[in-house]
């Protein structure tokens, strides 16, 4: 019954999305007020129905209802409760339902909360949202029904891929999806504004919190995904330039550019066409991300159960939405009045440079990700990995960091080059001192890590500089947000550079009690013992580690054997210290009875994710600041009317 109720909710939601689109079309084309008035409530109910469907799917997973095919394929009654819950979206159908649920909720929220945007533009925006939702409901109902019954009903399910049985699953996909889908709201705003030719500061202010919100979640999702891959896959790396990682990075890059250009539009009424373009590009990137993950067109660590037919469906949706939006853009944006202009040396100028460089990085990542497909067209098989991306995107990202330091210290509209250089004196000095220190005390580290450390120090100084001589209590929250986010980038960059410059790695075969060394640590294998988990058995090594003469601590890496499905995974053990992480992985036993151990000492690697969290925190502060200012402005307008 629950499954049928879920399916019914999905059908109703789909029908309401169609209705929402029709009302919008009639309302906008014929200026029909009643049709327009119906759009908002329909959007809210559609969102509620999508939520109901998702909750019902979670219910069948929690109950381990083996009469539902999706539960059979992806769950098992022995599975811990958290993974039964998160397992609802740890598969294709469930994750697409989550996608459309978040889309529905976002649409409903726009309908309920947005008050300052021109009504016609808002209705057009909700119409665009309905069009996107309709496509995904169709996809779910006709090719990926999550509620399909199993016949015959098996005794138990196939279990969930063990790599996914991790708290990361409960967190990583939903945050990324909220990010992806949040960007769809920005896209819908852009389409709505193009339809009514109303691209201006009001539109930018309406769009900005959505872009910010989506961007915060993308940042968190990518940061969490990176840490998850780092400890779960046991390779000791935190970014692999895997196609699916790139698929999440590309929308983030586009959203970061959009975030900055929308500020120019909201504050100075400049960059109108560019901002609209970026909103379309950002959503294209999240659609392409979804497509790459779901079609299995590229080999990837994320290629769990893929299906080219579903890929074709998503591709068709992508063609309709993005192709349509770009045609609308080409046809309409020429008729949008040009915005304000500005001097090259100005805050806007720096933001434009930021946008261009972000776009170049985005282009590099896109080309690098899709190039294997192009090469295949000419009969060449190849894969593109870290050497390409590090050499191309790396240097540009470093230039971007340098501009990032200078931008916030510049004035809007027009500034003098010498004044800017003066304001950059302290951060520049910090960077130079850092460079000198590393050249003297750590000679021989690579040029990119060295530049990374130098620029990270300079950026850290530059990003707190806007607070200089300011009354900190009266500094607006969004300025704090910018400071914290930029500082976060500096922290993260320092972690990346430190990891690639100073990591020590050892692969050893050791007997019990034999001391091994990595970096400043001495590590001995004390024992190997079998342990039993809720749905796996494992061999667990007990390692004692000690730095110099310091106190000893224990690490317990495991090699796990899962029965359903039959898989071996290695569970790394990581000791986090203030200045980095000791990372250990248990391998196999060799012919002489020695155990393989992989040992890494990674100084300050934690800064990578700490920085990511700071960036997201900065976004959150900024969002709070903007929302409270919007609220005050709206209240003033209400009072003026009353």
């Amino acid at each position, binding site marked *: 019954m629950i499954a049928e109720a879920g399916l019914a909710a999905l059908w109703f939601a789909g029908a309401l999305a169609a209705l929402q689109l029709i009302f919008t079309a009639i309302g906008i084309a014929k200026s029909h007020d009643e049709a327009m008035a119906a759009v908002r409530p329909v959007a809210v109910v559609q969102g509620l129905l999508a939520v109901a469907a998702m909750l019902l799917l979670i219910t069948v997973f929690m109950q381990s209802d083996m009469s539902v095919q999706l539960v059979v394929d992806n769950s098992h009654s022995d599975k811990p409760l958290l993974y039964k819950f998160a397992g609802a979206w740890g598969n294709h159908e469930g994750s697409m339902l989550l996608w459309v649920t978040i889309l529905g909720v976002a649409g409903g929220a726009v309908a309920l909360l947005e008050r300052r945007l021109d009504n016609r533009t808002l209705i057009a925006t909700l119409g665009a949202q309905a069009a996107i939702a309709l496509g995904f409901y169709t996809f779910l109902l006709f090719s990926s029904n999550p509620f399909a019954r199993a016949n015959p009903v098996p005794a138990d399910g196939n279990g969930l891929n063990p790599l996914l049985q991790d708290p990361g699953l409960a967190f990583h996909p939903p945050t990324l999806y909220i990010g992806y889908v949040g960007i769809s709201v920005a896209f819908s705003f852009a389409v709505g504004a193009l339809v009514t030719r109303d691209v201006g500061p009001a539109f930018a202010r309406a769009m900005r919190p959505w872009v910010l919100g989506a961007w915060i979640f993308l940042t968190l999702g990518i940061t969490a995904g990176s840490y998850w891959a780092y400890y779960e896959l046991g390779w000791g790396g935190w970014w692999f330039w895997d196609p699916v990682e790139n698929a999440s990075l590309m929308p983030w890059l586009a959203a970061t550019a959009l975030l900055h250009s929308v500020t120019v539009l909201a504050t100075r009424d400049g960059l109108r066409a560019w901002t609209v*373009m970026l909103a379309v590009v950002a959503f294209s990137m999240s659609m*392409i991300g979804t497509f790459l993950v779901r079609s299995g067109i590229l080999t990837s660590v994320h290629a769990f159960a893929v299906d080219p037919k579903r890929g074709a469906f998503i*591709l068709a949706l992508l063609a309709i939405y993005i*192709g349509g939006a*770009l045609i609308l*853009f*080409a046809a309409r944006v020429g008729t949008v009045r040009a915005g304000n202009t500005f001097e090259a040396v100005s805050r806007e100028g720096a933001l434009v440079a930021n946008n261009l460089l972000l776009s170049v990085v985005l282009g590099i990542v896109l080309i690098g990700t*899709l190039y294997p497909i192009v090469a295949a067209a000419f009969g060449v098989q190849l894969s593109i990995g870290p050497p390409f991306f590090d050499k191309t995107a790396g240097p540009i990202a470093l230039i971007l960091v340098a501009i990032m330091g200078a931008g916030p210290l510049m004035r809007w509209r027009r500034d003098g080059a010498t004044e800017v250089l003066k304001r950059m004196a302290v951060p520049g000095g910090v960077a130079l001192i850092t460079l000198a220190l590393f050249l003297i005390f750590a000679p021989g580290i690579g040029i990119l890590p060295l530049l990374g450390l130098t620029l990270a120090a300079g950026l850290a100084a530059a990003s707190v500089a806007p607070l200089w001589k300011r009354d900190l209590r009266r500094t607006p929250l969004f300025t704090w947000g910018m400071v914290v986010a930029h500082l976060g980038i500096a922290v993260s960059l320092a972690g990346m550079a430190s990891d690639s410059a100073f990591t020590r790695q050892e692969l050893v075969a050791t007997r019990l009690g034999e001391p091994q060394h990595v970096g400043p640590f001495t590590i001995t294998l004390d024992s190997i013992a079998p342990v039993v988990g809720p749905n796996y058995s494992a061999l667990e090594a007990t390692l004692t580690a000690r730095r110099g003469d310091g106190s000893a601590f224990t690490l317990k890496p495991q090699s796990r054997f899962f029965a359903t499905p039959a898989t071996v995974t290695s569970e790394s053990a990581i000791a986090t210290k203030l200045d980095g992480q000791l990372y250990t992985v248990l391998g196999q036993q060799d012919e002489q009875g020695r155990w393989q151990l992989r040992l890494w000492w990674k100084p300050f690697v934690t800064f990578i994710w700490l920085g990511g969290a700071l960036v997201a925190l900065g976004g959150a502060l900024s969002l709070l600041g903007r929302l409270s200012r919007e609220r005050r402005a709206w209240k003033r307008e209400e009072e003026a009317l009353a």
Partner: protein
Amino acid sequence: MKRWLLWLPFLGFVLLFGIVTFGLKAPTDRTVKSAMVGKPLPDFTLPAIVPGKPGLSSADFAPGKPRLLNVFASWCLPCIAEAPQLMALKQAGVEIDAVAVRDTPWALRDFLARNGDPYARIGDDKQSSVQLSIGSSGVPETFLIDAQGRIIEQHIGDIRADDVPDILAKLRAAR
């Protein structure tokens, strides 16, 4: 700004769409073909791994009669699946040599005792170096070697029952 410039993003998207559609339509062939097909076997010498059975070197191949070079390992499940077909080929008079990849003598002895031993020689390829030099990226793979010691074909994956007649025909043709 020129009006036509505004169409550039759309054109870029059409290009992207074309590429991706092609990628989706193109058969996804994930196997890695050896670049050595059609070329003579590279020089190598591998020690014996099982007592009483000689090791393998490239000199064993030419000149002689066409034969099979099977790349396998005792730890490989599809290798167990293809063992009966290799035995059938041996019954049909085919000489089969093997490269055992990253294996140990005792594990291999067990494997041969359990699944049959179709091999004339087995070379011990501890580091996969010979495997890689002939362009094999996984186990099992089987190379057809002609009478002059040239690789004429690479069979990727396990040999199924319906592959056997085909392989026999090709070996006959390579005489």
